[in-house]
């Protein structure tokens, strides 16, 4: 099919999915704080214990990812053996949540790391594999856990370090989506893969400022490549820029001639109420994954939203890199969804 070949690659960054690639089902499993947030009614499973009945927080995070995938398979009425590949990632060293979960699931694994942009990195790649025919059904999944992320990137909670107001609260949860051709569910039409940007910010307690330019770069490329404008979308969300990064994106986009006003929101601001003591807002792989795979999919399926752009933002630092004084390189990947077609 020649037309497919012509339209698959729009630019170096943007892919068009010419086939009828859809998110056929999605599921999320979250922790207690997320369950007290404004989107609670959209979540498939809410745990009232941050240990999720496990001995350690790392085990708890694995359980969240395992539960999200298990619920996903139940909702889609398929078994593990019907899925060709799972593309997944998390925030822990060597992607251990993903690796241990995939072993239990016995689905071929492509582990990915894009920090908090992993949600859309995995989903875009899953869509590409399905569109190209390398997989008939692929699962994209990712997870984060507040306590494991604090230990990984900042200080263990037992240490009791102070946090400034620009810090964010890593979302405890996991989200998973099933990607296939045809059937029900929102279509995945475009993906724009981001370039790494580094504006020289070194403070790991101010990820919002660090990541905002990466989001702007990717969203701007998306509009340029597709010829779309913010008005073409009912909702544009960034992954986890929260109260610090959100206004920066608005400002920078306005300066580039794209006014993103009412249709623009941020998953890190959507997942918690401001009075939940989450500093600037939510962060982590699960921020964009949980919001996308619950609320956004629901709204697209019900026709309340027609077109949505999710731009997941990731801070690609490691504890070693910032301790050695390096600044924080950031990335953002965007996926465009369309409902009711």
């Amino acid at each position, binding site marked *: 099919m020649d037309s497919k070949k012509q339209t698959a690659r729009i630019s170096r960054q943007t892919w068009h999915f010419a086939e009828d690639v859809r998110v056929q089902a999605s599921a999320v499993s979250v922790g207690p704080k997320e369950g007290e947030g404004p989107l609670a009614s959209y979540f498939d499973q809410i745990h009232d214990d941050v240990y999720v009945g496990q001995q350690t*927080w790392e085990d708890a995070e694995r359980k969240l990812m395992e539960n999200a995938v298990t619920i996903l398979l139940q909702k889609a009425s398929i078994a593990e053996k019907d899925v060709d590949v799972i593309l997944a990632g998390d925030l822990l060293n060597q992607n251990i949540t993903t690796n241990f979960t995939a072993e239990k699931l016995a689905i071929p694994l492509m582990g990915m790391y894009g920090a908090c942009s992993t949600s859309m990195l995995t989903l875009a790649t899953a869509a590409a594999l399905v569109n190209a025919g390398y997989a008939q059904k692929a699962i994209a999944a990712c997870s984060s856990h507040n306590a494991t992320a604090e230990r990984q990137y900042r200080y263990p909670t037992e*240490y009791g370090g102070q946090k400034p107001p620009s810090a964010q609260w890593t979302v405890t949860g996991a989200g998973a989506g099933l990607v296939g051709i045809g059937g029900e569910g929102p279509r995945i039409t475009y993906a724009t893969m981001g370039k790494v940007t580094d504006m020289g910010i070194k403070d790991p307690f101010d990820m919002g400022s660090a990541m905002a330019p990466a989001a702007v770069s990717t969203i701007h490329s998306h509009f340029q490549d597709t010829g779309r404008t913010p008005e073409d979308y009912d909702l544009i969300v960034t992954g986890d820029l929260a109260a610090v990064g959100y206004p920066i994106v608005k400002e920078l986009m306005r300066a580039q001639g794209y006014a993103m006003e009412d249709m623009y929101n941020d998953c890190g601001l959507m997942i918690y109420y401001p009075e939940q003591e989450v500093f600037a807002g939510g962060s982590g792989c699960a921020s964009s994954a949980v919001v996308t795979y619950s609320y956004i999919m629901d709204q697209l399926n019900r026709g309340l939203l027609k077109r949505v752009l999710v731009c997941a933002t990731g801070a690609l630092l490691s504890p070693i890199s910032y301790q050695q004084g390096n600044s924080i390189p950031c990335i953002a990947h965007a996926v465009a969804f369309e409902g009711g077609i």
Partner: protein
Amino acid sequence: MEYVIAFAVGGLICVIGQLLLDVGKLTPAHVMSTLVVSGVVLDFFGIYDKLIDFAGAGATVPITSFGHSLYHGAISEAQTHGLIGVVTGIFEVTSAGISAAIAFGFLASLVFKPKG
């Protein structure tokens, strides 16, 4: 008045720590080390002992007094045992505090589980 002075001096030492965190953008570990070393330096110049005479617990409770104690232990052992005393004496005065931290840390970990 004694209490007021202790409160003010102890508070001022903590203000310096908070400024190092918020304005200096130091990590908590760097702030702690800086304050401990400051205690050593101030003691070397004979200032910290005067501060303790003046402010009492306001100067002995903050972490700077740990540096003061390290210095005192090292110097007093050095006077009796020579240079090797600097090494053996450094934890002479502070050993009670360190042992207590380990013991109470262990006991707390038996009883409590972090909530995240």
